[in-house]
Structure formats: C-alpha cells, structure tokens
C-alpha cells in the first residue's frame, strides 16, 4: 500500500478502492463493447462503429446516454418487485467478482485467502438474478430462456470449476495473488500438456458459462427474441448488459491470471498492470473470436458436450495434475 494511504482509516481506503474499481469497470466495459463490435466488424469485412468521434471512439458514451434517456417500460403483467430487482441482483455478483482480482502485486481491493473460490462462488450467484428477470417478466420467451440458462449453468459450472482448479493445484494456493506469483518463472499455459489442455477447457467452459455463441441458446435471437432480457428497456436493460459484459471481462482477467502469468512480462515492474490488461484483453478477444466464428448448437448438443466430454475430461485432467504435482514434489 502506498505511503499516502498509510494514515487513512482502513474503511476509507477500502471505500476509495471500491469506488475507483467500480467506475473503472463501468468505463472499461463500455469500451470492451466497442472493442468487440470493431473486432466482429473486421471479421465480417465491415468497419464497425465509425461515426461518433474519431474512429467511433465516442460510440460507447453515446450508447450509454441513449440508454439512460430511453423510456422505462414495465409490462403490466410482470411480477413487479421481482422484475425491478432482477437487474440489480444480476449486476451485484458480476461486479463483486472483481474484488479479489489483484491487478498488480498488492493492487487489488481484497486478496482473500480463498480468492478463486470467492470468484467461482459469487459468479454462480448470477443465475439468481437471471432467473428473476426471466420469471418476473411474465413472458414465455423470457421464461424459456431462463430455463435454458439453468440447464446450461448446471452443466458448465463444474467443468469451469475443475479447469480453474488446475492452476490452483500447480500453485498450491487458492489466493489469486500467490497463483499469479507462482508463474513468475513459467506461465501455467506453458506447463507441458496440462497447461494447454487446462487453458482450452477453461476457454471452452468460459464461453459456455458466459452464454455466448455457439452456446447462446438462451439469447437465441431467431427463436427467443432476446431471451431473458426481452422485456427490459432503458437503464434496466443497460444494467443487465453491463453485468453480462463485466462477467466476461472478469472471466478474461481470471483466465489471464490463472494461465497467462498475470502481471509477469518484460519491462519495469509498473508495466505489470498493463501487461495484465493486455493479456486479459487477449483472452477476451479469444472468447469473442469463438463467438463470431461458430453457429449456435442445439440444446441437447450443448448438454452432451458438457456431460459426456468436458466433465470427464476436466476431471481426468485434475487428477492428472494432482499426480504430477505430488510426483514432482511440489505438493505442500
């Protein structure tokens, strides 16, 4: 902690850190959407947003203002308290998971000793908000989407957890800061066989857990219009979108931290945070690349992929990692 903060009360430091982080996420997410739109446009031989500001750089700001000005339409038949609370309940876990991520050595809101477990536990709470939105809207498309979401999240939470546990075993700690520090010599993605397989499984289950194409059956524009958020408009819609993108960005940071060595990179130490950001954006672009490259697959295919392939594979990989860790004498 820098010396300037030393004589401040602890709660004030925590409040300031959270304030900076929350605003950073909101702004970061806005520009991540621009990055995705530009990237997707290039993949489809388009230019993407270009009109607002130089190279469309002000597009996210314009979008945010537009969303704030929009009328807030509440369906008459909606379950009002549930409908109104859903975006907030959805957003909170998506924001909370950033709390444990150390953006540079010692630079995070809370480097808990159960860091990764906190991330996994809180991000699994997202489904409650999602389901409240699906149910509260009292719309059959929204409800169908929420049901599909439950199916998918039950199926992909476990492979996601197992894949994330591989670096935990290699580092011998649940604390995200220590997992990052353990990769100072060798990034876990470079760990023979285990690292690459773990990373592939992690990316696969991230894409599925974030409900992005080819696993976006709960959004499925052609059949469910927009899924669980079909009845939302204005700022409530914006909150859901913010939560969804924040979750993707947080998962990208987690992927960069678990497999790509977090802040380690050439150059002076203060460049660490920048390296981390670049790596996280690379993971995000990888996820986006998958999204814009494949077509949506069917529900049964999604479930079969999880239970018949991904689940046993990640479980075997986890066992294998445990054996290797004990064999090489890294077990503590």
């Amino acid at each position, binding site marked *: 902690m820098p010396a300037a903060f030393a004589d401040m009360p602890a709660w004030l430091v925590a409040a300031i850190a959270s304030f900076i982080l929350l605003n950073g996420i909101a702004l970061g997410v806005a520009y991540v959407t621009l990055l995705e739109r530009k990237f997707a446009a290039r993949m489809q031989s388009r230019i993407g947003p270009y009109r607002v500001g130089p190279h469309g750089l002000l597009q996210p700001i314009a979008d945010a203002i537009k969303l704030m000005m929009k009328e807030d339409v509440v369906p008459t038949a909606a379950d009002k308290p549930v409908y109104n609370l859903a975006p907030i309940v959805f957003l909170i876990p998506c924001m909370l998971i950033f709390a444990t991520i150390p953006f540079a050595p010692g630079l995070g809101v809370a480097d808990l000793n159960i860091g990764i477990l906190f991330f996994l536990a809180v991000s699994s709470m997202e489904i409650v908000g999602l389901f409240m939105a699906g149910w509260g809207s009292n719309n059959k498309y929204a409800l169908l989407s*929420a049901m599909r979401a439950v199916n998918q999240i*039950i199926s992909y939470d476990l492979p996601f957890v197992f894949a994330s546990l591989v670096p935990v075993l290699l580092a011998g700690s649940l604390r995200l800061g220590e997992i990052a520090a353990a990769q100072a010599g060798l990034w876990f993605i470079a760990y023979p066989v285990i690292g690459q397989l773990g990373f592939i499984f992690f990316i696969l289950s991230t894409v599925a857990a974030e409900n992005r194409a080819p696993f976006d059956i709960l959004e499925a524009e052609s059949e469910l219009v927009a899924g669980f958020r079909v009845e939302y408009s204005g700022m409530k819609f914006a909150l859901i979108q913010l939560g969804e993108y924040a979750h993707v960005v947080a998962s990208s940071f987690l992927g960069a931290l678990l497999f790509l060595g977090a802040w380690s990179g050439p150059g002076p130490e203060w460049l660490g945070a920048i390296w981390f950001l670049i790596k996280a954006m690379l993971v995000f672009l990888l996820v986006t690349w998958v999204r814009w490259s494949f077509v949506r697959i069917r529900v049964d295919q999604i479930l079969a992929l999880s239970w018949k392939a991904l689940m046993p594979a990640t479980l075997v990989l986890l066992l294998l990692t445990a054996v290797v860790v004990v064999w090489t004498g890294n077990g503590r």
Partner: protein
Amino acid sequence: MNAETIAFAALALVLVGSALMVVLSTNLFHAVLWLALALTGTAGIFLLLEAEFLAAVQLLLYAGGIITIVVFAIVVTERLVGESITQTNRRIVGGGLVALALVGIIANAIADSPLPTTRPPLTSDLTRAVGETVLTRYALPFELLALLMVAALLGAIYFARPDD
C-alpha cells in the same frame, strides 16, 4: 457494541426475516427467492466467524446450486401443470407451537452450558484444516456421503426414466 455485534444483529435480522418470509409468502417463486436471501445471509454469518472457506462453499453449493435446482423444479412443474401451486399451510398455529418448542429446547441447551463469550483465535489456516481433516480423519464419512449421493442420483434417474 462493536462492529461485529452490529453486523451479527443485522445479519440475524435478515436471516430470521427472510426465513419467515420463506414459509409465509404465498407465492412459491417468491419463497424460493427469500430462501436464496436466507442462504446468502448464512454465508454472511460464516464470514463473521472468519470461516471464509465455508462462506464461499455455502454460496457455491446452496445459494448457487440448490436454489437453481429448486427454481428449475418449480418452473417445470408449475407451468406445465398450468395451475399455480400454493405452498402455505393452514396449520400455522400448530407449526408456530412446534417452532416455539424447538426454540425453547435450543435456548435451554444454550443456557445450561454457557458458551465462552470470546471466540478462541484460529490457530491454523481454516481452509487447510478443512481440507486435511476431510481427506484424513473424516475420509470414511466423506466417501460414504459420496456413495449416498450416487445412490440418490441413481434413484432419481430410475424414477425419471420413461416407462418402456
């Protein structure tokens, strides 16, 4: 009153309130949401006791997993049957009496053996302690639990299987 006491009082209020709403609300879906709040509150209590690992597991398994499955069950049954299922019970007086009796028994037990007012400090990393005891001292009960779950799963599959 220190911060911990205030936090405990607030959490206790949330817990008792949401637990009451679970049994009193007439809408089954709302009851489940209150249950989610109650389970999250329990995780908060674990956090107050410096049991971060248990708090995270509580969120992951109960608030995340169990709630999801309960909600799924409601949606599948309620919407397909086409009539809403009520979950309130008219025997509220009898239920209240039983609950009161239970509170009496627990209060009596607590009063008989006064608990130490200050919590003994943790001597080791709780997460490590949980991991080690589960895999050494309590390995057998742990495995037996796993066996029980497999049996439950097989039973569920047996009942869910279409007749042919």
